[in-house]
């Protein structure tokens, strides 16, 4: 077993800190690409890169802390995290700060989006719920989990933040999926979702409908809603195989590309580093996800398995939704590219998630004993 293998000094440090070297390697690779792309997207302003570095530092501290927490503690905390998140979500709706037309932020000492807490709160609570119960879950249990998922999702959707709401639903669905939900339920849910599309269309805001329509025909509104998609497709497409070179992307450097340091940073990477650069980033991501799934497979009990699997697969979903959006395959929903887009809140949540993964991996033997 790996525990018997001789480890060098680095390995000892990692083990003492409850860190997973392979996961760190993958994350570090993604972060390096992120900083390179940010430096280019921020008009080569080193200060922006440094401030993103500082945010990474804070996020890494969260990772370090969570890696030390034994998974059983997390399980016990699950219901409380969820409950606190729910209270904060209601508070945001009642008296949150409005920014860019949406009420998403709350000021509790620091400005913070409670919906981010829910990204961890839902899997933690569901993991706690399913841990002691026989799997696959019974039908009443599945109904219960649906309520747990849909209450926060609805609260977030009315902020309005449809992107995050969908991601919360996804993370909850993934937990149930890993819990072994029967295929007939999954098929039924898929059918129901397809049937619900028209209803969803009716409750969407005008700007959300416009984004969907724009996806179908971006050229219909080249200076309005279609502008983002058109410019980002041009950026990626003109990158070709090898890209225009770092700092040489005309789309990004001449500011044709909007939101290029946040939601659309994948277009900067595609333009400057080309197909190979984009594939390299994807490979790093897949390495991280693969490692996460291995940790999940090795996890000792139901709670840790469900949590590790969900964190890994949710991470992939973020990547897929963002890249598909930037390449014009999905409507523009405000989902950043995980670990790469500038911004602090989602970075902390993600790194906290990786901290949990590392905790699950490194506390394994203790549990086994």
């Amino acid at each position, binding site marked *: 077993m790996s525990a018997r293998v001789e480890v060098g000094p680095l390995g000892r440090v990692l083990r003492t800190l409850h860190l997973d070297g392979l996961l760190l390697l993958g994350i570090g690779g993604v972060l390096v690409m992120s900083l390179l792309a940010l430096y280019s997207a921020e008009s080569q302003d080193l200060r922006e890169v440094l401030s993103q570095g500082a945010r990474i530092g804070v996020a890494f501290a969260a990772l370090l802390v969570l890696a030390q927490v034994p998974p059983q503690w997390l399980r016990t905390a699950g219901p409380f995290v969820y409950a606190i998140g729910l209270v904060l979500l209601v508070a945001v709706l009642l008296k949150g700060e409005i920014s860019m037309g949406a009420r998403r932020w709350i000021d509790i000492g620091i400005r913070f989006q409670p919906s981010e807490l829910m990204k961890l709160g839902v899997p933690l609570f569901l993991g706690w719920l399913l841990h002691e119960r*026989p799997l696959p879950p019974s039908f009443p249990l599945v109904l219960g989990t649906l309520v747990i998922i849909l209450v926060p999702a609805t609260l977030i959707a009315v902020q309005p933040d449809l992107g995050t709401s969908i991601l919360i639903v996804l993370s909850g669905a993934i937990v149930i999926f890993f819990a072994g939900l029967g295929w007939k339920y999954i098929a039924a849910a898929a059918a129901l979702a397809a049937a619900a599309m028209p209803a969803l269309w009716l409750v969407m805001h005008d700007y959300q409908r416009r984004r969907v329509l724009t996806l179908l025909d971006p050229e219909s509104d080249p200076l309005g809603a279609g502008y983002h998609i058109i410019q980002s497709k041009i950026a*990626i*497409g003109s990158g*070709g195989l090898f890209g225009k070179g770092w700092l040489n992307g*005309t789309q990004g450097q*001449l500011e044709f590309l909007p939101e290029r340091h946040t939601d659309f940073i994948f277009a900067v990477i595609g333009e400057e580093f080309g197909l190979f650069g984009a594939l390299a980033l994807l490979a790093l991501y897949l390495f991280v996800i693969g490692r996460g*799934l291995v940790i999940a497979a090795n996890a000792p009990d139901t709670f840790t398995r469900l949590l590790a699997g969900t964190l890994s697969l949710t991470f992939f979903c973020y990547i897929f939704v963002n890249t598909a959006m930037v390449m014009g395959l999905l409507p523009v929903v405000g989902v950043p590219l995980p670990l790469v887009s500038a911004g602090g809140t989602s970075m902390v949540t993600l790194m906290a998630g990786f901290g949990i993964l590392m905790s699950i991996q490194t506390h394994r033997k203790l549990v086994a004993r």
Partner: protein
Amino acid sequence: MARTLRIKDAWAEQQLFFARVLVAVAFVVVASGLIVGRLVQLQVVEYDYYSQQSSGNTIRVVPVPPIRGLILDRHGRTLAENTPSYQLEITPEQVPDLPATLERLVAIGIIAPDDLQDVKNLVRSRRKFDTFVIAERLTDLQLAAFAVQRPWLPGLEVQARLGRRYPLGPFASHALGYVGGISADDMKELDRAAYAGTSQVGKISIERSYEPDLHGASGHEDVVVNAHGRRIEVLGRTPSTPGRDLLLSIDADAQLVAENALAGRRGAAVAIDPRNGEVLVFASVPNYDPNIMSAGIGRRAYAALQEDIDRPLFNRALRGQYPPGSTIKPMVALAGLHHEVRRATDRVWCGGSFSLPGSSHRYRDWKPEGHGSVDMTGSIEQSCDVYYYGLARDLGIERLGGFLQQFGLGGNTGLDMAGEQGGLVPSPAWKKTAFKSRANQVWFPGETVIAGIGQGYLLVTPLQLAHATATIAARGQRFEPRLVRGYRDPATGATEYLPPRPLPPVADQDPAHWDVIIKGMEDVLYGGRGTARAIGAAAKYRMAGKSGTAQVFTVAQGAKYNAAQVAERRRDHALFIAFAPLEDPRVAVAVVIENGESGSKVAAPVARAIIEAVLEPRT
């Protein structure tokens, strides 16, 4: 518990989980394949298309600003022109340390310390790769200072551009106005495409009112720029359309005479050609230097102008509202004739005061001992107040006010300049709406009495008074006053003159009636007891006029004004209206001097000087 029916089977659950992980892996592989497929589609299959689109993006459309139209006076003298000036332009993305750069510009005297925040706000509001002006009209000293510091100021360029210059300086500033940087508010009213390359827009007076004519339209150049936005090649050019030159009716010589005669005072003088409504003189003092305003006046200097007790930025000719005083007596007399309330020969005894029946209040004449027996002509000549107290009472406020409105009082004259104030001709109906308390809404007979001598609520602007005077001179014929009488095409030099715009004439068309009041106004200057007989002497033509003195009700209050200033502002306003030559009037003028005390002694000489300048040009 229901749960005990199913026992947790750890091994089976682990197998189930492994199966699900495999499904997840399959999903990840398929979805990643989708991403890779899309990348390949965009970056390999459709590469040529997007590559072309991308280079298409590097063609920029650069606007070419039009040349602003000139403003010329009626004799072709230039009042506003365009001269090359140097301005400092910034491209923020090329500036490594913006705050330090701006501080340096303050240190070398290009940006005033007070304006630093404004410049910072401006930079923040523009896109990083745009090039825009942050300082205009650089002096030689500033240019030299910049040249020395140049190596430490990347991203800044000095550009020669055409700037607005007003050769007469402060003269005629209230007629011409000035241009200034385009503000966010201006932009709302402007066509963005037409103003794409323009940095200045008319702010006030003619420069603003004729902005569409003066401005023209921007052209554009299609320029290839490299990845850093630098020009490499010009592909095509659409020239700009220059603005049209404005030909004013203003007579610059007379304008200079008027403003010099008014120098040191607060007031206004307006002269109008009664034959067509052309405005010959449009003076308001104190004036200001539009060159300073157009160069981008500093915040502190602008605040100083605004807070000046003499209010140099206030266009008194257009917006100053004053009680007309006795200057309206000829019009009141005509109303009496028109409504057959008085005959010209009716004589009224003036004993120095007037009382309404059943009231002990005495309305005093300006001459305490009275004028004795006066007829209508004499009442104008001597400005007998008692005559008009009675006449106003007999006319009633409705007929009196209605007649005054026919001369353009109480409403905009229609001058081709925005911002005109309408003055006020009061009526019982007006009073009902103007006052809140019911007690104040009643029209008192005494208010009709004092309206007869141009006091009370009655208010006129100098422009309205000049227009009314021109209407008397033209015996009831009225024309819309205007400052611009034509256009000149800057390319061909072809001129186009605008026809006069007649207004509905005064209802009374009986020449005998007009003869009476014009004789009265002639006697003001030439009669044995005329109030302004000192003014008419030694002129080559005969004039007609009327003096006026208006009581001041409100005085600017406040700690920042000293007692002497306040006391001076309690004095009466001095007014004078006149036209000449008597037989065939070519100029009508109204002069208002705030706190000038005597219409005949202070305002009348100004009117005389203006008439002389118009009728006897030096050239």
